[in-house]
């Protein structure tokens, strides 16, 4: 029988956000809790298992852990058309408060993947109270992310549709990879630029990715220029956010690297 102790619940204003609290295994007192910040859309679906596995490992190592779904994503209330990056940043702060309340711990570290890493960095910089931040495959430039999503969407249409319908061409502006996308969301995403951060997102940062990208190197330098203590790790492995969701891949080496860093930093 599994020893894991996990509880699902709704929280926040109008109980509109879905969360999962992983209680820490006793015996290893930690002074911080950990909030996992997921990415969006297909990234979120395909990385779900990896995020869950990471949460279980962290809880086993004694950290109180929480995962949650942003408004209008996953099991949270709201529809695709209501997704807003501004709202999602506020959701991270709401989740931090909830995690503090549930765990009784006053400090919350953030681990984010892809867009989740970007949002965690933005929120960390605004708040200034994040003891540790793991930026796992951070999206440094929102414009690049939008381009990538459009390319993936078009590629998907080429693979699966009997006839890529003419309307599919103009639909790329209103839907991407199975989800509705509004002009507001496009604009918010395009405005993201982690190189424009003026405050460090955390004192202690791990940047980890599976393929060395020039943008990430620039981000790493920028973090150092802001006075953050940051470490970069290149851990080669599958790009789980693009893999078939039925593979439910978990990049064990990445999770292990995160665990090693967060338990010793």
């Amino acid at each position: 029988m599994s020893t894991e102790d996990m509880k699902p619940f709704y929280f926040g204003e109008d109980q509109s956000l879905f969360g999962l609290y992983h209680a820490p295994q006793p015996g290893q007192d930690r002074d911080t809790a950990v909030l996992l910040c997921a990415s969006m859309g297909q990234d979120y679906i395909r990385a779900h298992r990896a995020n869950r596995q990471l949460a279980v490992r962290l809880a086993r190592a004694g950290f109180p852990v929480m995962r949650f779904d942003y408004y209008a994503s996953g099991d949270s209330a709201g529809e695709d058309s209501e997704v807003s990056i501004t709202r999602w940043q506020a959701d991270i702060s709401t989740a931090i408060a909830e995690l503090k309340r549930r765990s009784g711990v006053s400090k919350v570290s953030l681990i984010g993947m892809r867009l989740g890493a970007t949002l965690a960095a933005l929120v960390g910089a605004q708040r200034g109270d994040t003891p540790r931040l793991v930026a796992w495959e951070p999206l440094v430039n929102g414009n690049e992310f939008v381009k990538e999503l459009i390319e993936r969407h078009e590629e998907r249409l080429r693979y699966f549709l009997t006839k890529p319908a003419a309307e599919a061409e103009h639909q790329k502006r209103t839907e991407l990879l199975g989800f509705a996308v509004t002009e507001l969301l496009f604009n918010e995403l395009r405005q993201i630029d982690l190189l424009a951060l003026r405050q460090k997102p955390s004192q202690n940062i791990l940047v980890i990715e599976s393929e060395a990208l020039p943008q990430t190197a620039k981000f790493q330098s920028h973090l150092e220029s802001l006075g953050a203590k940051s470490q970069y790790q290149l851990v080669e492995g599958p790009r789980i956010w693009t893999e078939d969701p039925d593979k439910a891949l978990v990049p064990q080496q990445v999770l292990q690297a995160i665990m090693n860093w967060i338990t010793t930093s």
Partner: protein
Amino acid sequence: MKEEALLFGKYESLIGIVTEPEASNQTAVLLLNAGLIHRIGPNRIYVKLARQMAKMGFTVMRFDLSGIGDSKVRPDNLPFEKSNVDDTRQAMDYLQQTHGIDRFLLIGHCAGAVNSFWTSLEDTRVIGIGLLNLESGDQQWDVYDYKRKVSRYYENYYGKTALSDMSRWKKLLTGKADYVSIARNVFRNIIWNKVTNIFFRYKNKVVKSQQVVDALRDVFIKGLESLAARNARVLLIYAESSTGMERMQLLVGQDLRAMRDSGKLQMEIIKGSDHTFTLLHTQDALFNVLEEWSGDVAGVKAT
């Protein structure tokens, strides 16, 4: 409409979300895991569907089977196909105990369709099953499916995309294109794949394994007949580009058509859709079919 997150089941190990209607029609809908995708379903369609069906008065539960999504693995050694059915029946037990509901519709995509089918045979509380893209392929069929997708990809790539792209024409005409790569893709990935697939289809039509047909008839068709005998309703939905439908038609198409014509099952095709209903208009079409069917089964109107 209200949603509640809960842990349930004999081991308190299954995680589910119940979407409550404002006024219950005393019928519940279970949405069953599509392969390894967690309870929100491909493209979050289970969440959207749950909320729309709750507006019709259904109590809707989406949950994760043991070892999938957020549900823990079971402490017993029950094989996966049996534990799926048992987990699903536990979800029904939970809703019956807490809501007093004893009429259930099971809706599942892909592997969820398989689970819906097996559970319906074992539990008479099931009054209808909605099977989305039920697949029944073997390894050879999977290779066929893969080749078809690859040839379609390159056909679309070199057809619609490249023909309308001036920069690609420029590269082609100024000797800057990768001619070897283009030739390889056109001949191997389009033409050769199509030729081998035509041969595969022909071979399957002419010498389709009687053993496979008999097995399908023995299990699937007989199962559908037994559901019809107890007035449980069956809806088969396929995406237009699904090879699952092609295989079913090839092997037991005659039986299915006979059942459809005698009103024992309903078959619908979602036009322009891929396996996971990526485009929003295909999701809407899917929801419309499911709402109309479920409303009809439960005797309520679609919203």
